[in-house]
């Protein structure tokens, strides 16, 4: 029965939440050796170790006790273990007298992935402005001024940090390999695209909208911000953010020469404030990722530091796609700089190559 439960637990591990955090848990299991059947005892001990590790992720405990007048004491307790694993490896296994012992280290998925205390990188890339012909000059000027202040509005975000790279063209997908012109220019300027972060780019469209009725000519100025959030590492499209605002422009009665032109004061900062709130919603609970910038032996340099909320003692999980089962490594952070951190790989293998992706287990 327990083996079946464990199988279910491991199957559940395959369909875990996308935004789940990870934590390392140890488990130890022992099983009695019946006769000389060590193989069965080892299997049972491994199952017990997995059960033990899963219990460290989450155990629901219920207890009930009654003491009657006659002094009879009855107590019942039950524990329901629930845990999902990404993988595990056996640290130690040996025969201990009449029992077999297995000790494991497992990567458990943690539903309590913290949405606080970490900041992902967002590179604000090119945001173009398209203005419909015939619009008043001061409107266009207001939009451009608002755009120049966009970074300062977005910088108020608590779960991300902004790098203003609007002078760079849109992402082309090769940034993480350091092969694109964008990287060359940005490194010259000291602004390295965050390969493990996100990028934001798009357009602002300013146009005139007519909403005439039978007696009046009604014209508004409509401003639409359409931004695309992309994953710098994979190049994948993460989300579209579209925000729109309208300002009254011209009002006149048909047949009359007089018109009320409101000379609208166009301010697009509130629109970027809405963008900031949307970004918080999308990114706050996503795990913090880092790029392995250097890997020498078991020492690794990661692309995130204090500004991202990383602290000494944090653990990062590095999964190595394409490798065989259990292709993962744990990195413990020993030293944290403002924008970089360094740590050591805890397992002798697999060896982590440079430009791997590491995920903060918190």
């Amino acid at each position: 029965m327990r083996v079946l439960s464990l199988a279910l637990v491991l199957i559940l591990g395959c369909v875990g939440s996308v935004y789940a955090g990870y934590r390392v848990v140890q488990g130890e299991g022992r099983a009695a050796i019946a006769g000389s059947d060590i193989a069965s005892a080892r299997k049972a001990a491994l199952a017990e170790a997995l059960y033990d590790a899963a219990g460290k992720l989450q155990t629901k405990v219920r207890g009930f006790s009654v003491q009657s007048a006659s002094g009879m004491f009855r107590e019942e307790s039950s524990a329901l273990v629930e845990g999902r694993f990404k993988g595990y490896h056996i640290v130690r296994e040996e025969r201990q007298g009449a029992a077999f012992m297995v000790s494991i280290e497992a990567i458990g998925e943690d539903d309590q992935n913290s949405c606080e205390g970490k900041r992902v990188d967002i590179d604000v890339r090119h945001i173009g402005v398209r203005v419909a012909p015939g619009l008043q000059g001061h409107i266009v000027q207001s939009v451009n001024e608002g755009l120049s202040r966009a970074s300062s509005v977005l910088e108020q975000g608590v779960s991300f940090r902004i790098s203003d790279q609007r002078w760079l063209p849109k992402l082309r997908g090769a940034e993480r390999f350091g092969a694109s012109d964008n990287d060359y220019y940005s490194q010259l300027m000291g602004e390295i695209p965050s390969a493990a972060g996100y990028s934001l780019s798009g357009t602002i469209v300013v146009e005139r909208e007519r909403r005439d009725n039978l007696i009046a000519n009604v014209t508004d100025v409509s401003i639409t911000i359409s931004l695309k959030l992309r994953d710098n590492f994979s190049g994948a499209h993460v989300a579209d953010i579209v925000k729109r605002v309208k300002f009254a422009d011209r009002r006149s009665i048909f047949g009359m020469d007089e018109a009320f032109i409101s000379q609208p004061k166009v301010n697009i900062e509130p629109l970027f404030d809405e963008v900031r709130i949307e970004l918080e919603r999308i990114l706050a609970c996503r795990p913090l990722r880092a790029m392995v910038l250097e890997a020498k032996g078991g020492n690794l340099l990661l692309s995130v530091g204090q500004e991202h909320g990383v602290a000494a003692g944090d653990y990062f999980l590095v999964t190595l796609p394409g490798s065989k089962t259990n292709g993962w490594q744990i990195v413990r952070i020993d030293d944290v700089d403002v924008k970089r951190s360094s740590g050591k790989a805890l397992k002798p293998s697999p060896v982590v190559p440079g430009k791997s992706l590491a995920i903060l287990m918190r």
Partner: protein
Amino acid sequence: MRAIGYATVSIQPGRSTAQKQLNAIRAAKLAAMRELAEKLYGANVAGQASVAEGRIVNDLLRSEVEGLIRGARVVSIQPVRNDVYQAELEIAAEEVYALRSRGRPVFQ
């Protein structure tokens, strides 16, 4: 936060002594875990006592506990006498804080 649980070996199910010992260890761990849950979340306790002519005639004490434990670490498991195993568990302070801030869980 630490808690200790005990379990008797001889009353455990199992064909061999080794199996009974392992089951006793498991039972001791569960008892310690229950104590941890009581310390973390408290327990519902109900009691009733009756006295007639100065003499206890009915005395009933009932307690219930329900809780979610995460990150419990085994401090030690050892035989304390020939037939009894003792398990000591602990939860780190930050885990205690996190569990308490989540509030008492409601199970189905």
